[in-house]
């Protein structure tokens, strides 16, 4: 009997607390405390109980009745209060803290995913390099302007007798010879994404930037494959609505070479102050120069390759609709910038 009472009490309380209005609560009152209610039924059983226990159980029942009535009135108050506002689905939620992955990381992620899909392996080659890897192995003439103090940062440390001065690599192309020399087996299909440094800084040029360098070397690689790879990237990264064009260009380490432009999304290709007659310059590409293969200890008679190296930040800025006016903002640590993306 005692157990029945406590079970009934617990059930009543839990059901009362989950009622939302007067009607539900009244139904509950009738079910338990009404003339034929379940609690009333227990009360009626009292007279059948052994007289020795009757007093004790009677007290328990009285106590319980009080609890049920208190619960009932308490919940009624509660429901009345809630009833005034009702359920408001428009009340703002309480958000978990929202963090932000940087635009450059997002760009690197997207770029590596595109190339991983077509079998490229991602690399990260030195950002502080020897001249030999950054220039000499890439067929730069001794007097190329990129090798002078105005365009490239040099480290104040003794030069290596064989590899020349230590510098901050101005391009990821310095990874080409490393890939050829340090990799044991051909073919090569790599994408080197690293930091690079240029002695410059303006609205469209960063001192510290990231580049992605593709290098493919195999026995039967030709210009059509280079075009195909670039076309695949452009479609995947920029979407099918942007146009691209190749312009003949000159780089010491590729032959034939070209620069790649993408149609401007601000003016839709009509020409505006941000672009050149509707085109934005993305970066260079070409077939690997035989001298570079030689520097990488690869038989230039047997193997051919292609390479391209473009700025991560630059490429991402050219995505539709980003509208960041100054590329240097990407290095900003201002939360008002960072939390926008």
């Amino acid at each position, binding site marked *: 009997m005692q157990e029945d009472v406590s079970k009934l009490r617990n059930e009543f309380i839990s059901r009362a607390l989950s009622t939302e209005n007067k009607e539900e609560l009244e139904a509950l009152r009738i079910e338990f405390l009404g003339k034929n209610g379940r609690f009333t039924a227990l009360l009626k059983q009292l007279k059948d109980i052994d007289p020795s226990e009757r007093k004790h159980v009677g007290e328990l029942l009285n106590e319980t009745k009080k609890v049920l009535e208190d619960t009932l009135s308490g919940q009624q108050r509660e429901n009345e209060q809630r009833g005034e506002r009702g359920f408001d689905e428009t009340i703002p939620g309480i958000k978990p803290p929202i963090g932000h992955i940087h635009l450059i990381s997002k760009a690197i992620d997207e770029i*590596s995913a595109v190339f991983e899909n077509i079998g490229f392996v991602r690399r990260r080659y030195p950002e502080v390099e020897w001249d030999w890897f950054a220039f000499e192995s890439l067929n730069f003439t001794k007097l190329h302007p990129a090798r002078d103090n105005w365009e490239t940062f040099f480290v104040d440390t003794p030069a290596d007798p064989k590899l020349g001065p230590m510098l901050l690599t101005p391009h990821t192309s310095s990874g080409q010879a490393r890939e050829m020399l340090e990799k044991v087996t051909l073919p090569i299909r790599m994408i080197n994404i690293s930091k690079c440094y240029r002695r410059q800084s303006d609205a469209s040029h960063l001192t510290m930037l990231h580049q992605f360098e593709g290098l493919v070397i195999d026995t039967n690689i030709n210009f059509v494959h280079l075009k195909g790879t670039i076309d*695949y990237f452009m479609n995947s990264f920029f979407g099918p609505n942007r146009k691209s064009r190749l312009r003949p260009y000159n780089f010491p380490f590729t032959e034939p070479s070209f620069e790649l432009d993408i149609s401007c999304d601000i003016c839709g290709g009509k020409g505006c102050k941000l672009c050149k007659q509707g085109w934005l310059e993305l970066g260079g590409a070409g077939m690997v120069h035989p001298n570079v293969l030689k520097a990488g200890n690869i038989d230039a008679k047997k193997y051919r390759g292609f390479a391209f190296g473009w700025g991560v930040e630059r490429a991402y800025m050219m995505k539709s609709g980003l509208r960041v006016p100054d590329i240097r903002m990407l290095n900003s640590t201002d939360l008002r910038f960072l939390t926008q993306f």
Partner: protein
Amino acid sequence: MLREFLDTKASVAKIAECMSLCGPSIERVTKEGKETVYHVEVTTNRVDAASSYGLAREASAILPEFKIPAKLKTIPQAKVSSKTAFPVEIVIDKTVCERFMAIKLENVDLAASPDFMQSQLNAIGQRPINNAIDITNYAMFMTGTPMHAFDYDKLVTQKIVVRIAKKGESFTTLDNNTHAAHGNEIVFDDGNGTIIDIPGVMGCANTAVSATTKTILLVSEHMDPLKIRETSLKHEIRTYAANLNEKNLDPHMMESGLLYAVGLFEKHAKATIGSTLFDWYPNPEDKKIITVTKDAIDAILGIQISDTEMIRILETLGFSLKQKGNTFTITVPTFRNNDVEIPEDIAEEIARVYGYFRFPNELMEGRLTKESQNPQFAFENQIKTLLSGWGGVEVYTESLVGKDMVNENALRLKNPLGGDREYLRTDLVSSLFDAARVNKHEKRPFHLFELAHVYLPQPKKLPKEEMRLAGIFVNTDYRHAKGVLEALFEVLHITKIQPVLQKKKNYFFYEFTIEELYKNYSPHAVFTEIPIVPPQIEDITVILPEDMKVGAVIETIKESSPVIRSVELTVIFEDAYTFRITYLDPEKTLTDKDVEIIRDGVHARLQKLPVTIK
């Protein structure tokens, strides 16, 4: 100017479009007065194209690929029939001069240059002066040959000595700026030690054409391009002529350029030729010959371009070809000696004029590389995803920093852009402190983090580029900050490193090497049997004196029995700390009695500490 050498009906827009696709790119076309100006980017290896004639030659090769007829015209040149001996003595230092040409022009009628010439020079930003000066400029833009007009009567010594300047020698250029020589400039000396010209860069005031000039000595020379560049840069005399000369112009092209100018002098300045043509060219450059098979070209390009098309393209560009079966013997025009050396260069000429855009786009077939992706990249990405998921904001800060932000042996740049960016950083948190200060206006809690290299010097080697993870918590209480790191380690299953934060001012920060984290990380947990018996859970409240660390209390409780699975701090009220203890023995259900024994053990151990159990 372009159409003077190019015979075509193509529109300006069409020429610009086709040239950009196949040759030097035309960045913009503008209207200046009644002239149309093409803004052309000529790459440094193609100085042969940096003139109207050079561009016309490109266009004559390119336009026919778009089915637009175009023909290159020849450069009109004056006929030199004078028998009068060249009157000036020229002494040349062979080590710096490759070719020297000059001619005397008499009866020059100095006046304004004709309207067309003024209009065209104005359009390209070249201020017209008089017919003599304008003709030399005009001829340079038209033919690509820089030249200089001396006032013949001011050359009183009748002598020119080509030599290297001595340090400190003084000269005054046409623009009336006086310079002191650095000592490596090529100069013209009048034989008495007076400098009268900085060849290839700019003339000197003492021999310049002026209102009284009647007779002119017209000179063109090919000098050491590196010295020209050095002189031009050091003295900040960046003339168009210097720009051309420093790129190693073809000495063979000098004659047509100079005689074109002579023709203009005859026509527009009523000049007469007063001497034979002086031409000193002791060692004409050899012609380059490249032998290549059609198969080799096809293999590079991946498509087959017909023999006839290939021959047409190369011939209009100035190459001459001999075909024997599959093999072509190709003579490179001298004006392309700088940039055409190997079969790949020939392939490029064919491909670009044929049109890169006409090539199909196909991905390569064949073997994939044997390596798999380096999992460290995915690991780094996972960290970024987790931290940003818990509110972290990723930053990219500069790796070049000031001296106050690095170790004392940090690598220094020889040529920094500024004192605050002179060193390669040796840690990340210093940059994050800066980043925190940038956001001092922000009153809410925030967490900045970065993954980047630091550059640790190694003797005689490249620095070790160590990838690190660092972060900083601002306006954040310690437990919330530490919780983020604890959560990170928990998800990455890192147990051997403590998720410890350091404190500086009001900031809490951390810095780890990715290598250390990666080494201790496990991509997944090891399965443990799900206990079939229920745990017993109870709370214990302990009063801690101020100098007592919570960690010691937790450790003490944990060490009391192997059955204690976890000790969790749940409530802190003033100095009372409530810990929730979970007892679990996988072997059997713990009875109240069992727990009581363990609890007594816990109490006994705690009593040895200066704490009070409530």
